[in-house]
């Protein structure tokens, strides 16, 4: 639309934008404010204090970082999420490549099976997975959690990457293979580099899925403190008898802000990714 809208419409548009921006930003701002307040409550009885930092102290951050094992939890989350993402990508990319490039019997069925299995909600199969990991001896250890996360994000990653591979023309690879390349080389030397943007986005999404997960982590790695992950540890902090809300807010801010920044940095990719390869949900 090239024409410049009337002033009345303009005002309405800005009103909507400002209203929703407040709606979008306030909860995060609230958490930031609360992290700078000392005390037992996440809110304060001072109404103004809910909107601007009337008092600010770094005490909560200091306690969380140096007296509570928050850094350990944070490090654990990073490790587990990174490992899960790497494994997930390796497995999903090869599967996606095969599903996209080869035409073989049962391809459609396999795809539908993948999708069907992913609809079995993770929460419900958790007990079985916990028992399974116990049998293998991986219960309560990060390795078990990594395995669970890998398989959890497998279907999503495979579908995503397959959709992207579908949009890359086969010609380059066929040419390479006429020249004598095997399928594995075609995969690693041609298809992978071309799929870099999709790989990046899929990797970030898989990472975020494992980073923010609560249920699997709280069931599969319940104790001790030095092994717990950030999100379940913070949640159980918020659920103890006398909740140190200031500490919780400080920890939450530490977990949420990086997530936000990463997503914001990848905004472009989301838009193009969405209209490009497939539908994400």
């Amino acid at each position: 639309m090239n024409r410049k809208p009337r002033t009345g419409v303009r005002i309405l548009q800005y009103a909507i934008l400002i209203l929703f921006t407040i709606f979008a930003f306030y909860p995060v701002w609230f958490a930031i404010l609360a992290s700078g307040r000392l005390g037992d409550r996440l809110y304060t009885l001072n109404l103004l204090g809910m909107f601007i930092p009337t008092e600010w102290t770094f005490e909560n951050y200091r306690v969380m970082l140096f007296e509570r094992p928050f850094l350990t939890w944070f490090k654990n989350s990073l490790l587990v999420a990174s490992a899960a993402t790497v494994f997930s990508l390796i497995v999903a990319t090869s599967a996606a490549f095969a599903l996209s490039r080869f035409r073989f019997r049962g391809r459609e069925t396999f795809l539908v099976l993948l999708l069907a299995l992913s609809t079995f909600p993770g929460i419900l199969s958790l007990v079985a997975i916990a028992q399974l990991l116990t049998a293998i001896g991986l219960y309560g250890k990060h390795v078990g959690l990594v395995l669970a996360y890998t398989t959890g994000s497998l279907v999503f990653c495979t579908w995503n990457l397959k959709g992207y591979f579908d949009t890359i023309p086969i010609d380059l690879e066929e040419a390479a293979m006429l020249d004598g390349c095997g399928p594995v080389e075609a995969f690693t030397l041609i298809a992978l580099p071309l799929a870099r943007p999709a790989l990046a986005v899929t990797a970030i999404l898989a990472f975020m899925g494992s980073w923010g997960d609560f249920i699997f982590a709280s069931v599969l790695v319940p104790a001790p403190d030095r092994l717990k992950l950030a999100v379940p540890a913070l949640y159980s902090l918020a659920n103890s008898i006398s909740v140190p809300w200031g500490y919780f807010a400080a920890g939450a801010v530490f977990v949420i802000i990086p997530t936000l920044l990463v997503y914001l940095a990848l905004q472009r990719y989301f838009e193009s990714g969405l209209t490009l390869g497939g539908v994400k949900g």
Partner: protein
Amino acid sequence: MSKKLLTVISVVLILTFVLAACTPKPDLSKEVTIKVWHQWDGKYLEAITQAFNDYTAAHPNVKFDLSKPEDVANALNVAIPAGEGPDIIGWANDQIGQQAIKGNIVALNDYGITEDFIKKTYEPAAVNGVMYKDKIWALPESQEGIALIYNKDLVTSEYLPTDPLNFDDLLAKAQKFQADKGAVLVCNQAFGGNDAYHMSPIFFGFGVPSYIDEEGVAYLNTPEAVKAAEWLLKFKDVSLTENSYDICFAGLKEGKVGMWWTGPWAVAGIEESGINYGILPFGRPFVGIKTLMMTKNAVDRENQDIVIDVMKYFTGAEASKKIALVNKTIPANTAALKDPEVQALTAVVGFGAALNLGVPMSPSIYSSAQWDPVGKASQAIWQGAAAPAEAMAAAQKAADDAVSQMK
């Protein structure tokens, strides 16, 4: 002496030493880390960790690894078969039945703890609390029950009920308090919440013998229970709409709340805030016994001797007394409880009186079925979703349903 006699004596002496060395004596000298899973919170944990540290100081080969899992029951279910579970669990006695059923904890009778020993060492209520199906499953460390902790400056004697079982009196005093001072008399985290434990003084105070007894009979829609539920609804008018541990504590500190219905665990925080507090027993609260249990994993790892020694130490007179003096809890160990220093603590006197009125928590498996129905019913009543009689009938139905699944 003749050479022959010397030889015989030497051989006998050597044999004696060898035999002495071979008798199975608890080998307390191997290097070991004892894993402890517990539910101790906040300030409590400091004194308890100190007790464990003292043990390590006395026995340098034993180290402790304390951790507080989010959901102990489920964590145990998966960890113990894997051999990854703790050696000791610090938990309330109502869990004993369930854990014994699953085989996660072991009966201590097989490891040298006799009934005589526990009867001599611990309070009778505590002894009853750790025996299930005629076996001893844990060693008790403290007893607790809730009572009204009140602000002496705010709640003067005209507002204090005198008869701990007269609920109408409490209601009247609460109305008077609100009219005179504009503040709420009683704050209880179970009001509006799903907390059958903090509701217990009310229900049992009205005459309900137990939520669910040893045979699995539920007493939730008896006339007494319905009367208690109706009183609860009436009491809502003189209470805060939203109650929680933090809200009650903050209210007490800020003078918005006169009395807080809570247990010994809150005393440390209250003392720190400088309130001039008194303790008033009211109703018949649940008497919970905090215990230490030994798991099957400890036996598998052959740590049982050390674990028994640790448990005896922790629940022994000396350690119990030290912890009680700091945490203001009520020890289950008779010697520690009768110690004059412990008896001098206001908390011990006050809560001790509450315990005498109270109803002990039973370790049977049926007691695990009582929390949900009562908690949900009281929440529904408070929020006005159901009438008292209706809600209690639904609770009875749910409790019967749960019990039938166990049989």
